[in-house]
């Protein structure tokens, strides 16, 4: 079992619904401070976006964040170097597109992630069918390969993805890119499908915009991922304080439903 999964199972075991905010690396010059603020406010893990020029699973907010980050010169190396200066307990999970990894080299990338506290990676355009080299490299470096499950995934595929995913399973609440709508969509159905074949922690993402959504998701999922809502604030100029209070609001909402 990956150390990410061990950690996240521990969170679930503690009766806590996991909160996973998303921060695009390099979106601002003090982005690592934003990560710290999120953790300080109660994040159980943080998704770290590594920007890609053509993020096909992302809506306008995260696209914009990626463009700003790229314009500022962000690279895989620069992110890893900056993460090295971070001091947070919560595990970090990279989110990027395969070309960034492919170009860097899968083994080098897994190695670099491991040395920068990135304990997992979500690569939405890398399905398990294409992932063998990457999975091998991750396995050697204790980097969890996290897969998404979509509302359209048929049962056999849910089983396959549930088996392949590590750390947690990412249940997409809807057929849409990030930041699209604002409700829980098909989340419950996707989560249940996963539950029926696996006991890995299941987190819901895509469409979680408000603490209310989070509270509702907490009824059936092990965690929630909050991406565009947070990045939208940051694009509008929010600093650490605002980020901290935003994340804290989600934390409180989740805690209000947790069964300790």
């Amino acid at each position, binding site marked *: 079992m990956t150390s990410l999964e061990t950690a996240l199972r521990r969170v679930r075991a503690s009766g806590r619904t996991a909160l996973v905010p998303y921060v695009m690396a390099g979106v601002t010059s003090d982005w690592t401070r934003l990560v710290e603020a999120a953790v300080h406010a109660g994040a159980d893990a943080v998704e770290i976006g590594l920007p*890609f*020029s*053509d*993020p*096909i*699973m992302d*809506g*306008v907010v995260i*696209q914009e964040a990626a*463009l700003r980050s*790229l314009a500022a010169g962000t*690279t*895989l190396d620069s992110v890893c170097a900056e993460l090295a200066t971070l001091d947070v307990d919560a595990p970090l999970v990279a989110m990027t*597109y*395969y*070309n*960034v*990894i*492919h*170009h*860097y080299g899968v083994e080098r990338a897994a190695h670099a992630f491991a040395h920068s506290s990135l304990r997992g990676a979500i690569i*939405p*355009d*890398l*399905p398990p*069918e*294409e992932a063998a080299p990457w999975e091998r490299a991750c396995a050697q470096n204790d980097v969890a390969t996290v*897969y*998404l*499950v*979509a*509302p*359209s*995934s*048929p049962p056999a*595929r849910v089983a396959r*993805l549930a088996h392949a995913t590590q750390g947690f399973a990412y249940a*997409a609440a809807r*057929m*849409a*890119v990030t930041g*699209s709508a604002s409700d829980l969509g098909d989340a419950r159905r996707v989560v249940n499908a996963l539950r029926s074949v696996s006991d890995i922690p299941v987190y819901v993402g895509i469409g979680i915009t408000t603490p209310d959504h989070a509270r509702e998701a907490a009824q059936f999922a092990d965690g929630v991922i909050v991406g565009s809502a947070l990045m939208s604030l940051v694009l509008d100029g929010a600093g650490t304080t605002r980020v901290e209070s935003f994340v804290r609001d989600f934390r409180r909402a989740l805690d209000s439903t947790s069964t300790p």
Partner: protein
Amino acid sequence: MTDLFMGPPDERGRFGDFGGRFVPEALMSACLELDEAYRDARVDETFARSLERELSLFAGRPTPVTPLERLSRRLDLRVFAKREDLAHTGSHKINNVLGQALLAQRMGKHRVIAETGAGQHGVATATAAARLGLACTVFMGEVDTKRQELNVFRMELLGATVVPVTSGSRTLKDAVNEALREWVTCVADTHYCIGSVMGPHPFPWMVREFQSVIGREAAHQLRELGVETPDVVVACVGGGSNAAGVFAGFAEGTSRLVGVEAAGGSAVGVGSPGVLHGMRSLLIQDEFGQIEEAESISAGLDYPGIGPEHAYLAARGRAEYVTAHDDEVIAALQVLSEDEGIIPALETAHAVAWLLREAGRSIAPGSTVLLNLSGRGDKDVAQVRALIRGES
């Protein structure tokens, strides 16, 4: 060269190391469904007959192979042109969209979406959709909607909705991104009608198969004109669909296959392996794997990648990929117009430019050349005029 080139890809949609299916989970089922539906349709005689019917009765196939006598004399070659410019909507694009639109209909989808750069593929898709009574939405970079206002209106006349794409560089690459994003939301009733031999499996294979009618016809027509095997087969390459289509008729033989990219968008020349838009292929990218803009006077070649099968043919040395510069391209367009009364598309003029450059050099005098005349230049006339007059 005993390999069988241009057969089906492997199970995973790979041509050697290239191809595959790098798509978000939300699109995986659609790709699998499409794969199955296509495999089923391609062996179904009813489907074959409907497609053959639309191609001949609606799109005007077979297009002729024209002996270019005056150009041949100029170059001391025997040049023949496969006339995709005469296909309905003015280029080879219609071959592919009719195939996909009929397949979409067969799959029970009532809507198609497409990306477009300058608008050729968008117009073709809107055309096929109108013909079959399907709804149609075309994604087009905002920059391109402004450069190509008339093509936007053409699509609207055909009943399609054109969505200007404001993300990224607002051109073709971003239109593909946006079409994929849209597809995620509507896979159940919508088919993504991709415009070239690119994207996730089965698209590169399927689009090549739909375009291979070009090569099949041409091989037959050349034989009727007394040419058993042309020495050279040359086509321009954006994503690579017209080249793949014509190469398919000659890949098993000994013809020299040449794909001509725009010098500013040469995925084979300056690109490196990478993953974009669902496929592993050669891409133009920076040292960090960020995709770069292709740049060319010809909107149809402004794609930073190339179809995976071309990457494979290049790697195996079965086809060679070369480039043409903007100024040679303009000159070539003028030569073909004056010599033969055919104003080619700027894309096509890249292939002509290579021919003019290499005749008597790497192409021996007297050689037989098949030029794939992928499209007509009407769409480009205003631009060419401005370029010649030095207005842009």
